């Protein structure tokens, strides 16, 4: 029997006026699985990602997390419920230190609006931040201002920040966007390691990249669900081949 899904999307559609970015997509994600959402340009990958992460509300349909309907949950509540994301375009706190970036993300689980207690007294958040920086290989740069970091390092920082929420579900929007080949393979290794402890869903444009590491792939096309399965299933799926090859 299939384990009950961690997150489930039911009949989700998202329309911008007459344009249908997503049409009636239903997918579920089992716990501790690494899944990639793939598809050619304009397939609706990013829209789907934004629905999963709460950035966009679907026109119709539902999103369930651990069986709970979270479709109308506020965007800032996602992290607290254990859903974290890394953005396609790096979104970090540029003028703050590397450590402070991750510490703020970790702080959320201890204190959010406390006004009079010094933040230095929240030792756990500080230690967790350093541990995460160690994990993504940025500990040596902890006191640097983020603006001085290389692009690839900022991408790693993004992931450390997402992990600081201790998420059950980690959503990643093109985690290797703009990375060098070396950085890309290091990132893929990190993602594989992360997926051993939690559910990871990533949106990726480069199909070959994810074929090797993902247990499951979901193919979207023109905002519709096209196919899902293992890398081999997808590789041998005629429709997927037509879609990818058809556009040259």
């Amino acid at each position, binding site marked *: 029997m299939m384990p009950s899904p961690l997150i489930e999307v039911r009949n989700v559609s998202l329309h911008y006026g007459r344009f249908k970015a997503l049409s009636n997509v239903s997918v579920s994600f089992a716990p501790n699985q690494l899944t990639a959402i793939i598809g050619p340009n304009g397939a609706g990958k990013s829209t789907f990602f934004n629905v999963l992460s709460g950035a966009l509300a679907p026109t119709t349909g539902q999103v369930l997390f651990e069986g709970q309907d979270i479709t109308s949950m506020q965007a*800032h509540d996602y992290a*607290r419920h254990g859903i974290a994301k890394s953005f396609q375009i790096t979104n970090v706190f540029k003028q703050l230190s590397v450590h402070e970036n991750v510490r703020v993300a970790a702080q959320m689980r201890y204190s959010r609006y406390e006004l009079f207690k010094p933040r230095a007294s929240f030792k756990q958040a500080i230690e967790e931040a350093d541990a995460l920086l160690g994990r993504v290989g940025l500990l040596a740069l902890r006191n640097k201002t983020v603006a001085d970091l290389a692009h690839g390092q900022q991408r790693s920082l993004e992931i450390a920040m997402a992990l600081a929420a201790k998420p059950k579900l980690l959503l990643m929007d093109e985690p290797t966007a703009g990375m060098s080949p070396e950085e890309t393979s290091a990132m893929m290794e990190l993602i594989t390691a992360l997926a051993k402890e939690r559910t990871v869903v990533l949106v990726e444009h480069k199909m070959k990249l994810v074929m090797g590491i993902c247990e499951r792939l979901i193919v979207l096309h023109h905002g519709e669900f096209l196919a899902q399965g293992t890398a081999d299933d997808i590789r041998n799926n005629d429709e997927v081949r037509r879609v990818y090859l058809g556009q040259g």
Partner: protein
Amino acid sequence: MNLHSVVNGIARHRVASALLFLLIFPLLMPYEALAINILIYGLFAVGFNLVFGYTGMLSFGHASFLGVGSYLTGIAMVHFGVHWIPAIFVGVLASLVAGLFVGYLAIRTRGIYFSMVTLALGQVIYYAFYKAERWTGGENGLRGVNAEVIDLFGLRIDFLNPLTKYYIIWLFVALALWLVSRILASPFGSVIESIRENEKRTVACGYDVARAKLLIFVISAGICGLAGALRALHLSVVPVDSLHYLQSGQVVMMALLGGMGSFFGPFVGAGVFLYFEDIATNVTKYWMGAVGLLFMALILFFPRGIWGSLMYQLKQRGMLQGDRE
């Protein structure tokens, strides 16, 4: 003890050091009234900077909170015979309410729209007080805000003595600066800085950005309201220009002049601005022109502001450690 450890020692105890300096400050000024003015506007600018420098929202309506604090302190004293100490609290409370009103309506907007909404609401408040002549004295301002003498176990505290007045106001400013410093060092303090840096990421980190913005806006209004309340006592009158948008513009200038990226920058900016104004008005009535030139020169050559540039230089030379000045 070398210079390095002295600088870091001062930075670690920034509020204490500043307050010690402000204790001897009136001796350095040509006359006490100017020192008091700087104290009050310094607090106003620090309060304003919570929203501007720390959260990244440029409000053009902060005169409202200075003015409401002034007026309500004055109204409580003149019309209701309230003693000046509780009257200060009335003023602060009123500015908190005004902050909630303006903040609630304005924080939904961003960037230039936020500035425009705060400016417009500031004008609404200005005209409301202007028209309520029976309570506010209208164009003439509210007169007769006189703090009576307190007899504290034989110790006479007389507000008419300028130096006494300075130290009483110093006490309130000290309390407020300490409070602001505490808030900035709290978990919430890093949330507002995160909002300034990247709102989207702050939301993704699990923080309710709208709520945090409203909270800091109200706190900022309260601090500015306290500055207003003290100003009413200092001047013994509440001039209607307390609420004028020029006042809102001036505090932006003060913050930029001193450096919006630092805790004391705005205070230093207020001091430099008022000291310069004091000298320049004696020379020419077109002193605003000179201020304008000074301002432009600073923005062009020292975009971090006077205090901000100093802190930056110290950090570059390894004299100062840590994230904040």
